[in-house]
């Protein structure tokens, strides 16, 4: 089982609302205890006398980034299933700047405004009213600004993606930067509080150092995991079964609805010959999407020309059971797609197997042919079979 849990289709929409409310309660409670219910504390950040905004916000970003990096590096979190805000360069530069102005004018941001309202601050309630007005204003003037609103679209763009490094490296950088900023912020507070006569904010240094050490340790462990040599995915990523040619042939005939059979040799090869019922895997991301979107109720059986040694990328996202065909297409072909030769010796087991293979050969290839008669060499053993029995059991 990997995170995020919602990706596994475990619960429906209303459970999400319960989770949302609970997460919101924790979010609101923490913001208030962090001091974010007070506009005077929030704005003191920008007069350099109390840098709580920077401290709380950057520790939160660093904690979550380090946690996600650790879980991603150990394979517990599938980052591809996580929704990351998309980048729209121009709108976010202008929007961020305007938002900053709005923050220092009103004293709140939307989230802290809700918490401050819950603490009884009338100004915060008015700020939320203003924000709702701003939403409507934006909609009313959407026509002329639409072009700019949609400009600079870069999709999901992450720092690890741009830099081409594991997220653990960027998370380590964020943690280092945050700790540096915190130490700087405490120095700046001391200087400016002396000037203005405000009390210097005190934070228990022992607790502070404990948080710093925790962050440092988390990113250090994630870095180790991120750079550990990874074992081949088939061996470690998830349990993958093997299925033999005979078992697969039986399944194809008797229970075709119990599995997805996917030919990973490419569409061109599979178009010529493939195991009956197999889906040819399209190349590239189209194929990955196909594998990820197959319903999980059936076993996903994959085969290549020879035995597969690694899974296609998209198979990792298939939520159900996966099996690989032992020996690949060649093994199946040799067993059931070429006309079987009659057994050299006519023991009952061999004859039965020969008949079964012939039947499957006919079925899979459409070639109608009766099994050739098996030459039965009757060895005359005089004596033993010479005297016909009379009578018989009644």
């Amino acid at each position, binding site marked *: 089982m990997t995170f995020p849990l919602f*990706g596994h289709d475990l619960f429906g929409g209303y459970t*999400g609302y319960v*989770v*949302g409310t609970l997460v*919101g*309660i*924790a*979010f609101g409670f923490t913001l*208030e*205890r962090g*001091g974010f219910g*007070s506009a005077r504390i929030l704005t*003191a950040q920008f007069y350099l006398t109390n840098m709580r905004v920077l401290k709380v916000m950057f*520790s939160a*970003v660093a*904690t*979550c*980034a380090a*946690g*996600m990096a650790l879980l991603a590096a150990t394979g517990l*979190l599938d980052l591809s299933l*996580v929704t*990351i*805000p*998309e*980048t729209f*360069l121009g709108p976010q530069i*202008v*929007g*961020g700047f305007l*938002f*900053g102005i*709005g923050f*220092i*004018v009103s*004293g*709140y*941001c*939307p*989230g802290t405004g809700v*918490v401050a309202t*819950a603490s*009884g601050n*009338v100004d915060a309630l008015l700020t*939320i009213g*203003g924000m709702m*007005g*701003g*939403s*409507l204003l*934006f*909609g009313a003037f*959407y026509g002329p600004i639409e072009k700019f609103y949609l400009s600079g679209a870069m999709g999901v*763009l*992450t*720092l690890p993606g741009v830099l081409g490094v594991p997220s653990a490296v*960027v*998370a380590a950088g*964020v943690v280092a930067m945050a700790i540096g900023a915190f130490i700087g912020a405490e120095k700046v507070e001391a200087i400016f509080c002396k000037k203005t006569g405000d009390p210097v904010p005190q934070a228990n240094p022992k607790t502070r150092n404990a*948080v710093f050490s925790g962050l440092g340790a988390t990113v250090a462990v994630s870095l180790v995991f991120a750079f550990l040599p990874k074992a081949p995915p088939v061996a470690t990523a998830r349990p993958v079964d093997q299925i033999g040619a005979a078992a697969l042939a039986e399944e194809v005939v008797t229970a075709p609805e119990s599995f997805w059979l996917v030919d990973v040799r490419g569409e061109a090869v599979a178009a010529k010959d493939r195991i009956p019922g197999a889906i040819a895997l399209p190349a590239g991301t189209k194929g990955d999407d196909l594998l990820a979107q197959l319903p999980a109720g059936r076993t996903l059986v994959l085969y290549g020309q020879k035995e597969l040694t690694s899974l296609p990328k998209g198979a990792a996202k298939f939520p159900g059971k996966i099996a690989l065909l032992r020996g690949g297409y060649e093994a199946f072909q040799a067993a059931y797609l070429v006309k079987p030769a009659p057994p050299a010796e006519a023991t009952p087991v061999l004859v039965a197997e020969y008949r079964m293979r012939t039947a499957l050969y006919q079925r899979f290839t459409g070639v109608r042919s009766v099994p050739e008669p098996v030459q039965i060499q009757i060895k005359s053993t005089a004596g033993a079979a010479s005297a016909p029995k009379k009578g018989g059991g009644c």
Partner: protein
Amino acid sequence: MEQIEPVERPLWNPYVAGAVLGLVLLASYLVMGFGLGASGATNRLAIGAAWCVAPHAVETNAYFAPYAGPGKKILDDWLVFEVLGVLLGGFLAAYSGGRLKLNVQKGPRIARTQRLLLAVLGGVLMGVAARLARGCASGQALTGGAALSVGSWIFMMMFFAGAYLFAPLLRKQWR
């Protein structure tokens, strides 16, 4: 019966508060697969309110149309519930912390009405800005920042830049 006045509990150590906030955000990512937000909910509330007054105007507006209309439930969204939770959580914390009281947050040198006008004005600015940037301090700076999104970090830097540049102009309101 000694103690009737609620004692104001001290705020948490900012680094501890930040770490807890980060864990709440991480929990949201691990359970739901996405992070926190706030302005998305006020946006939906605003559209819902406008729809009650002038449904036709809302449904024909290019920006609002995806939210409102036949078969669409404007307030049927995870964020709306999350922000209701924020309201409840903030109330519980303020009440238990002894900080729950009717108040207007301002510096000593500004009149109450002026302060309230600025509160609305700043709200309008943020309302527009959050739509343009597709998120606010929660949805972009915090949530996207933790997911290491490039746009979110740009938003965060610009947010601090805007606030620092305009802080001297508004000194009278806060100091």
